């Protein structure tokens, strides 16, 4: 806890609509409490802008607990800002110092067009899931949940991958605008589990190829891993690469799940 208040200078990207030209606007923000979250600081700026008759800065947000994946912006050139493993809503102003200049900008990628100010359209990520990010298990036909034991390390690894919140920070942070971490996390969440084996190879091909219709390629900069609010490892990208090559090149009728 700290009682001292900070004053920061905020430079924010303003863009009135998808086709409008954007620009940076700078605001003086006094009275910032270190206990405020970054989004609460923006709330304060917005309250003031509205009182002054100016439209508030539009930004996506919802749960403010770092799990829904709605929020996200570049803060001083870093996706979700300077704290590792943290979504924008969980970033707190105590990470900044009195007098700091903070610049915020929307995610930039061809597949993430700006809707307004800091809001971008991330439906391309849904297209990737739609193309195969599921196990086809129609309601009602499921066997008993304990029928297939799953080794704890496997279940844990699947959970590590499944923790993805779909915020798009990996794309935003990647110098290539690639969505490999997002895609690999979902592919491997499902490919690691016994339930996911039946569709493993088709899932991998479909998801990778859909991903590539929208996003860039992976140069293994590791920026995605550093920006990920759930710190998902790029190891999953390697596993996806392996599964993709195998899916395309191996004799699928003979490749069981135990194939190395």
């Amino acid at each position, binding site marked *: 806890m700290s009682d001292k208040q900070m004053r920061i200078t905020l430079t924010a990207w303003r863009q009135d609509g998808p086709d409008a030209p954007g620009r940076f606007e700078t605001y003086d923000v006094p009275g910032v409490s270190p206990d405020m979250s970054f989004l609460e600081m923006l709330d304060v700026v917005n309250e003031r802008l509205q009182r002054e008759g100016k439209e*508030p800065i539009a930004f996506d947000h919802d*749960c403010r607990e770092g799990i829904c994946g709605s929020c996200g912006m570049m803060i001083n050139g870093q996706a979700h800002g300077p704290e590792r493993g943290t979504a924008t809503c969980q970033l707190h102003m105590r990470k900044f110092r009195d007098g700091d200049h903070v610049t915020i900008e929307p995610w930039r990628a061809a597949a993430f067009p700006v809707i307004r100010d800091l809001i971008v*359209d991330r*439906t391309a990520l849904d297209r990737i899931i739609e193309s195969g*990010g599921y196990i086809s298990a129609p309601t009602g036909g499921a066997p008993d949940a304990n029928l297939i034991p799953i080794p704890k390390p496997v279940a844990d690894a699947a959970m590590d991958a*499944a923790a993805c919140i779909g915020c798009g920070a990996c794309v935003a942070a990647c110098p290539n605008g690639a969505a490999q971490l997002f895609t690999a996390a979902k592919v491997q969440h499902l490919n690691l589990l016994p339930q996911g084996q039946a569709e493993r190879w088709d899932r991998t091909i479909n998801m990778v190829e859909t991903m590539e219709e929208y996003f860039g390629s992976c140069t293994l900069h590791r920026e995605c891993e550093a920006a990920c609010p759930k710190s998902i490892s790029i190891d999953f990208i390697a596993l996806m690469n392996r599964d993709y090559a195998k899916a395309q090149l191996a004799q699928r009728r003979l490749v069981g799940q135990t194939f190395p």
Partner: protein
Amino acid sequence: MSIRGDLVAPVPPGPLEDKWDNHRFSIKLVNPANKRRFEIIVVGTGLAGASAAATLGELGYNVKVITFHDSPRRAHSIAAQGGINAAKNYKNDGDSVYRLFYDTIKGGDYRAREANVYRLAQISVDIIDQCVAQGVPFAREYGGLLDNRSFGGAQVSRTFYARGQTGQQLLLGAYQALMRQVHLGTVTLIPRTEMLDLVVKDGRAAGVVCRDLNTGEIYSLSGHAVVLATGGYGNVFFLSTNAKNSNVTAAWRAAKKGAYFANPCYTQIHPTCIPASDDFQSKLTLMSESLRNDGRIWVPKQIDDPRSPDQIPEDERDYYLERRYPAFGNLVPRDVASRAAKREVDAGRGVGPLKNGVYLDFSDAIRRLGRNVIEERYGNLFEMYERITGEDPYVVPMRIYPAVHYTMGGLWVDYNLMSNLPGLFVLGEANFSDHGANRLGASALMQGLADGYFVIPYTIGDYLAPMLGERPVPVDDPVFREAEQAVSDLTRRLLSINGKRTVDDIHRELGKVLWDNCGMARSEQSLQKALAEIPAIREEFWKNVRVLGGDETRNQALEKAGRVADFLEFGELMCIDALHRNESCGGHFREEYQTEDGEALRDDENFAYVAAWEFTGTGEQPKLHREALEFEYVKPSTRSYK
């Protein structure tokens, strides 16, 4: 029972355990080949909405699903931490469908419908099977089988969990199933779209009016049935653990079109949230209840004690839960713990810079078990706490305070989950059903998925079957045109006020009135006060709110304004309901109705009913309909945690 209700939900005949089977056999079916001739509109993509849309799509219905998020995966179900209950009895500790049913009825303080609750307990088992088949990575033991934990004071271990992210994993499972149907073309997904009205024609739900949030376009969707799965109304308090965009708009606008709103006063307060740090606080963050297993709750005995916690000697601390409830101590149920904390803070013994919390102290546990054990059990929670407050809970006691968390009330539904308006179905937190006056921990996820995966897919057929061959009402029908017009008029009106106060400013004021007067404890006096103040705030809103910008691009202030306008009407209903219910039960605690020990005093004689309110006009006294609750199997008794 002496209560005569005018509202009846036909419950299937037969013994409790056979009711659902009997019902499924007796309801009408839609031939598989005919299902594609029916259009169903699902509003909301949380656990209930996504699972319903996916399953209805699998069955072959033509489904349109709308969400105001950019992706179905962002619905607030995603934030549930704890787990999901199921009567699997994998732990061999005596759990059964009947026990889960019994615990839920008792936990709900005997204000839920027995048949619905029993069905929920029966279905719970299938939910786990379904989720595992979808690839939900539940926690497992070293042998590879599913792990369970006990949760929220339950005496059996029946809670399945996926780290602290159970809601996320279950929602992703439902979302994936939904996206599969989108891919197959049975479901049309319409994101970034808000439902702003329900359209009713000839007494039946005929469709919805929506607004495209990106373009401001207002248009209608028409269908044979409308399924609302739009969550709870906790944000009426402004500060709650709900997501910022959660709102009552869809349910409230349906209520204004004739759907009854049931038990709005049942609101659940969660005892372990992080207290507000300043006036800019935008929402509250929940810390898992499991913390109370090892943490000790205390406040300084001295009022307004300025000392830091480590300076306060043991004998000047009041471990008030341990003192007042020696048997359960720090593990008393949510409502009891919450009220006790409020009592201490109201008495001036609150801690923290704003004196608005109580300590949750782990120093004893750390001494007894070692830091490693505590780190293993709660490491991620401690980390989250430190991130938010900047304090290290291994060294400084945590500060906690109760916050609004879940709302048991909702639109009234019958056994088929259909509201009193034929064709309008309501699922999940948006309906009033299964939890009675108080929800057990880890039961919200269970109910949402039960409704969506396993109830609505069958029961909707009973409504649709006789409609075979009927076309949905065309969207150029006058009822749609009028509803669209009303929605655009409302939008224009909000934009034209151009007063002085922001939407949040007014919402905050409403929230404070409700929290102070209709929060953890209510009294006739406080409720009368709130009922006097709310219309004034509402008037202030319509005179003096400032919503800038236009309606043709994304305008978040405009969206918020519409939602707050509804909260301003709904909040009044909540107080009216709380005022009429002259008893204390579950999430509704009336100060006048308590035992000498300060426990909730129920009045089964006069209040064992569901209060379903019919809207009669803004600011008008709503009309009360009663559904009498009969308890054939579980006889009401009084809770005691001494």
